[in-house]
């Protein structure tokens, strides 16, 4: 028995890949029509970041469907496919390669840190612009102008302020807030988050700017990305007497943190990253969300910006009734897709829709707001040497009062485009 097992094994150790390879090849489909260009869409709808990944992905998917339903890119249809890679890097790579080799992908809409960073080298080599929802600061230096940039990311774009810039904006607001309150002494600032690439992304950059603005920067407090009892961490925040805390985590972890710190009775002003605050999170947290500061790059669903009409039309692509209320992450997906759309239109008019031309199209306009989305997308400026499209941070305040979530705009902070902040 066993001998034959071994025989078979040795032989088929090598044969099997060949067989499987041919099998997969025969299943595959290819060939895209001349009248369409392919846009790949990586999304996380069933993985660890799915609870916000789905919202953002729906924004992209509905926009792509809406663009097609309304004439495409000057008549060229967008052929697209959404692949749920469940935040797994190997699957993201496989999906990318599939699109690249079989569908002749021109542009990709990506999602998080994991897929975006894994693909940085590939997209640069293949000249495929990627629009991600990973806002890491190091994606903003396309040429490696800043000597601190380890790896230039020439084909990476995102709509919104980078994690670092958003945090800088919050710190800038905090400095003014401290002055307005007129309390004596130096304000204390703490970074709160898990020890992972995503919460850590703005840690150093933000702490440096906080020090520059006269904050007393405390040592960071590590809080797990998974929800839990964070009273111990809250006690250390309390004993340090920190006044402002930047939350690097998201979702359930933020809820646990706010609740634990309320129990402990800290006197800290929380400021979260862009994924750390939305209506759903506040509603789930219930009483206890008080003046929770968070940044946003778009208005909210019930706001009455002129561009919201278009957003509501787009939303009907997957919600015929038009009654569904979307989280504001959805609008970021819409903006990301529409900047891509207009860059593709520019490319179409200037030599054809190729990855290289779409990249050039991203630099064609300044103070750029996609048509129809006025008041939804912030004016963006991408240049060949600076991929910090947005240098504005809208700061909002979330409250939960008597069963109702209330979100008010606090202010808009505009950051200077400092050279030493490029790619950082």
């Amino acid at each position, binding site marked *: 028995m066993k001998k034959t097992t071994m025989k078979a094994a040795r032989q088929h150790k090598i044969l099997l890949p060949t067989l499987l390879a041919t099998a997969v090849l025969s299943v595959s489909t290819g060939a895209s029509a001349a009248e369409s260009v392919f846009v790949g869409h990586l999304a996380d709808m069933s993985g660890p970041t799915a609870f916000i990944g789905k919202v953002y992905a729906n924004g992209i998917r509905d926009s792509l469907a809406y663009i097609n339903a309304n004439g495409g890119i000057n008549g060229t249809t967008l052929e697209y496919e959404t692949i749920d890679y469940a935040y797994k890097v190997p699957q993201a790579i*496989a999906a990318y390669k599939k699109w690249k080799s079989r569908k002749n992908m021109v542009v990709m809409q990506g999602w998080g840190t994991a897929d975006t960073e894994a693909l940085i080298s590939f997209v640069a080599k293949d000249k495929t612009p990627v629009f991600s929802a990973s806002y890491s600061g190091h994606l903003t230096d396309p040429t490696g102008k800043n000597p601190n940039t380890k790896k230039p990311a020439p084909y990476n774009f995102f709509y919104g302020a980078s994690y670092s810039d958003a945090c800088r904006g919050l710190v800038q607001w905090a400095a003014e807030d401290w002055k307005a309150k007129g309390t004596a002494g130096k304000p204390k600032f703490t970074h709160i988050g898990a020890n992972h690439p995503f919460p850590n992304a703005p840690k150093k950059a933000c702490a440096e700017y906080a020090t520059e603005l006269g904050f007393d920067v405390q040592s960071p407090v590590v809080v797990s990305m998974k929800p839990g009892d964070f009273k111990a961490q809250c006690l250390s925040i309390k004993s340090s007497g920190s006044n402002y805390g930047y939350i690097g985590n998201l979702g359930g972890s933020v809820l646990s943190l706010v609740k634990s710190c309320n129990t402990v009775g800290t006197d800290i002003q929380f400021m979260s990253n862009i994924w750390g605050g939305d209506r759903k999170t506040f509603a789930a947290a219930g009483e206890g969300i008080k003046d929770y500061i968070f940044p946003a790059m778009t208005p909210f669903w019930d706001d009455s910006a002129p561009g919201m009409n278009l957003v509501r039309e787009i939303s009907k692509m997957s919600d015929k009734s038009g009654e569904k209320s979307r989280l504001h992450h959805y609008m970021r997906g819409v903006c990301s897709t529409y900047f891509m759309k207009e860059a593709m239109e520019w490319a179409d008019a200037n030599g054809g829709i190729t990855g290289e031309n779409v990249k050039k199209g991203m630099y064609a306009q300044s103070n750029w707001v996609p048509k129809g989305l006025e008041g939804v997308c912030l004016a963006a400026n991408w240049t060949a040497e600076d991929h910090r499209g947005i240098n504005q941070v809208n700061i909002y305040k979330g409250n939960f009062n008597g069963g109702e979530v209330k979100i008010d705009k606090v202010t808009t902070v505009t950051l200077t485009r400092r050279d030493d902040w490029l790619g950082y």
Partner: protein
Amino acid sequence: MSSLALRPCGDFRTSYKQDNTIFETKTIRRMAIIAILVLCTAPLFVDGYVLTLCIQIAYLGIAALGLNILVGYTGQISLGHGAFFGFGAFASAWLNTSFHIPVFLSIPLAGFLTMAVGMMFGLPAARIKGLYLAIATLASQFIIEDFFARADWFSGGSYGAAAEPLTMFGFAFDTDQSFYYVALFALVTMFIWACNLLRSRDGRAFVAIRDHYLSAEIMGIKLNKYRLLSFGISSFYAGIGGALYAHYLGYVSAEGFTIFLSIQFLAMIIIGGLGSVKGTLMGVIFMVFLPEVLESGVSVLKDTDWGNVPMVVDGLAYIKEMAIGLVIIGFLIFEPEGLAHRWAQIKNYWKFYPFSY
């Protein structure tokens, strides 16, 4: 060398040479060589997508084989294999960028560095067994993961590390087609190496420890030495796999090397067959192709009228994720010895057809 017992009757070996062959018959050896030659021509026929999957199979396969040496052959357990895989990836990128060691040298060096780290974590592990060992190795997963996030000098912290492509004699292996050969070469080398290891004195010692550690010790096998060695070799394989991954991607970020990757490695060897070299490869192929096959199933449905109805597509996404879990449970219940065993049965059936016993 997994099957030292339960030989079928009539299977005699009269010399050590016979007992030690990698390929049991000339036909199998010829078939293997032909298969490798056929694989060498693959880039002429298949596209980048299939090549990517083959490259994935190669680097994951090398790492999974390391885990199988530890779990399947030595009877230990490791829940930190994904972290060692990541360590190899970062180590190779770090050696290359910080010390300008050429990539073809930094890959094996990264293997040895990972081996050193693996043995360090193996030190306490060599003295404990069972559940305790599982928890100790789980700790190594989290310690190394935390190290990635903190050690800016090594991994670039939250920024990740850039990895140069492999270059030899001025030729850069930076396309799927060219890197495929690197991956194939590494896979074949590492698998032959493992086969050789397992028919050596050390390999037999591993199996003896797995089968009955007390008897092994009485026979004069140093338990600590061999357990530690097994940890070292397993980490070496993980390091090589990780280094290949790094230089294929060109960029390493700590995001990918979580406990999920470690569990995925375990799933690969359980599905493939514990204590089987070829089973490892089968398990890896299965785990790499399963999501892709399910995905193409979803895509086929997307081309129909049900296409971009988000509810349908999202639902399928969940089914796809659940299917992977379901397959693992299915294997544990119906085929605990893995694909390798199933394959042997299929082969036996046809060998004696129509008189199978």
